[in-house]
């Protein structure tokens, strides 16, 4: 189903929820292919199903029907333990509200995925330093997240997502809690990582302007369906 050029392949993926008597089709028969190294923006209004689709790609949720392949793995056939391994090794995730653990220092937050992946203790400091350098944050590492600005917190979250060297970075409204200048700086950073590491990025956003500015392609969703998918003219990206 997938080749090396395809990072994520969705085939008629649906996700239905039951709310009392009625059913909700959060994602309805979506087929989509994301190329390796591509920066795809998922656009749509609230409730359009874009976050649900992102969670399905992240392996946090399972589709009601359809198939999702990511780097050769069929997510539907993975056990919950293998799905956890997939999230740990193939996926990096960042969120609108950063989701850093407030009780840990920045360094400890970044180290957390290394603990889960059982990376050797000796190797961890260099891996943390490497991730921090990528997001250009080298000071206040012993501080707690609440002592940092929003932009700095999101940089730490990106470093945490990168520390296990994932192939795909999933971003759920990464600029939603940031002012426009900081938001642009974060997206510039993502764009840079995409180019530098050859990383595939799928970003959910409702800010069309930013998406057009930084992404390679735009996929627009409405009522759980994929309404349109279009490449961004190169001039806009630059």
């Amino acid at each position, binding site marked *: 189903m997938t080749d090396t050029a395809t990072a994520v392949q969705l085939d008629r993926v649906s996700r239905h929820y039951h709310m009392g008597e009625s059913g909700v089709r959060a994602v309805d028969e979506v087929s989509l292919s994301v190329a390796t190294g591509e920066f795809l923006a998922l656009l749509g209004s609230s409730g359009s199903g874009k976050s649900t689709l992102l*969670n399905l790609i*992240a392996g*946090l*949720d399972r589709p009601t029907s359809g198939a999702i392949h990511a780097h050769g793995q069929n997510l539907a056939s993975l056990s*919950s*333990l293998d799905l*956890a*391994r*997939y*999230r*740990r*090794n193939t*996926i990096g*995730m960042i*969120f609108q509200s950063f*989701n850093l*653990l407030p*009780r*840990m220092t920045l360094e400890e937050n970044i180290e*957390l*995925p290394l*603990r*889960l*992946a*059982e990376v050797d*203790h000796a190797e961890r400091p260099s891996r943390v330093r490497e991730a921090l350098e990528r997001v250009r944050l080298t000071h206040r590492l012993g501080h707690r997240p609440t002592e940092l600005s929003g932009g700095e917190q999101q940089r730490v979250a990106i470093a*945490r997502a990168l520390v*296990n060297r994932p192939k795909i970075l999933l971003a759920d409204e990464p600029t939603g809690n940031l002012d426009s200048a900081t938001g642009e700086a974060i997206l510039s950073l993502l764009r840079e990582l995409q180019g530098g590491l050859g990383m595939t990025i799928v970003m959910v956003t409702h800010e069309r302007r930013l998406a057009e500015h930084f992404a390679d392609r735009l996929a627009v969703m409405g009522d759980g369906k994929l309404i349109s998918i279009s490449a961004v003219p190169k001039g806009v990206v630059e």
Partner: protein
Amino acid sequence: MKPRDLTDLALRNLREAVLRNALTTLGVAVGVASLVAMLSLGVGLQQLASKRLSQSGLFDTIFVTARNSFRGPGRPQRQTVSDKPPRPLDDAARKELEKLANVIEVYPQIRFFTEVRYNTKPYATVVAGMPESSRNSGAFDGMQGQYFSSPNANEAILQIEFAKELSDKPSSLVGQDLVLRYAERQVIPAAGPDSGANSGDMPGGFSVVPKELRLKIIGIVETEPAAGYGGYGNARLLMPLQTASTLRAAQVNDLRDIVRGDTPSDKITYPSLSVRAKSATHVEALETSIRNLGFNAFSLLDASKSLRTFFSVFDLLLGIFGSLALAVATLGIVNTLVMAILERRREIGVLKALGAADSDVQQLFFVEAGVMGLLGGIFGVAFGWLLGRAITFGTNLYLKRQSLNAIELSSVPWWLVVGGLAFAVLVSLVAGLYPASRAARLNPIDALRYE
């Protein structure tokens, strides 16, 4: 996750809600403490009873009598098939018994009823000779005054009730002298043909000569040691066995032997001998060996077994009562961890998004429960030990006021320490089962959406 990371994260989580977790741990500690204190009292009482019983010599002593003895033990004699003639219980027999395996010592029972004069007033009492081994058996622990200065000293230790009879202030008796008046046995040779007509072919006998011996009172003891089976009644005046045996005081069996027609002689025969075994476990085998030598043997074997049964049941009941507090404490653990799930919902979601498996989350909560159990166990065992010491201290204060000897009421053996810790951890892990599985089943999407 690696065990080191799991423990590290668990300890970090416990430190974050330090007051609540400390209170929960304290609850476990109180539960374990009550369990340990209860059981330590049970064990202490058992040891106290066993010690007293072993000091009494009841369970490691075999009473040996000659097979022709009229005076058998208080229950029917076991029928022994033996064609050997009955053997006298003399010095040769005593030496033979001493050579048997696992025998500490063999000593005769010397007890006689006689008169004691103190301040010229007569008092009737039973006198007993104490073997040298009684010095170290602990039977005289807590006595007033001293033990006999030598095995053949002319000294006496009085039983407290007898001492009260002699004086209103028993303790003032120590250092005083008393006079023992006794009947010495002097053998009359068998009558020859030239004797008077009445003698005929009658065997010889013995004459009884009144004698006196001055004894120094050197101590007062509350109970008579070895007042067990085989006595002629509780002796109230104790003297060294060797001193008592040189008196050649007429004893009950002397008269018996005359009546039965045995020829009395200077050769000593004992009414009974006490054989002390190294421990109660050797008693049964020794009894058989003694019977094979041609003597009657009797011991109190079964009493110690039923005592152990009693204390097992007693400890079990104490353990159940002690566990009740621990049962309440486990509810505290469940409550604390369930609260922690609610508080750490988002954190659990983040962990799962970062790649934590359900089992990682489950183990994390498990370790947290286990650490609370272990810490609670450590403090609980310490508290329990202290509680036992406090009860012992209080009891001894009371006993001292009643002029009684101090006792060791509680005892915490190593198995109680290890068992208390293991039980605390085990119970805590069981309490952590439900919260841990609930945390593991948490849907990460719901958890991340939760504000």
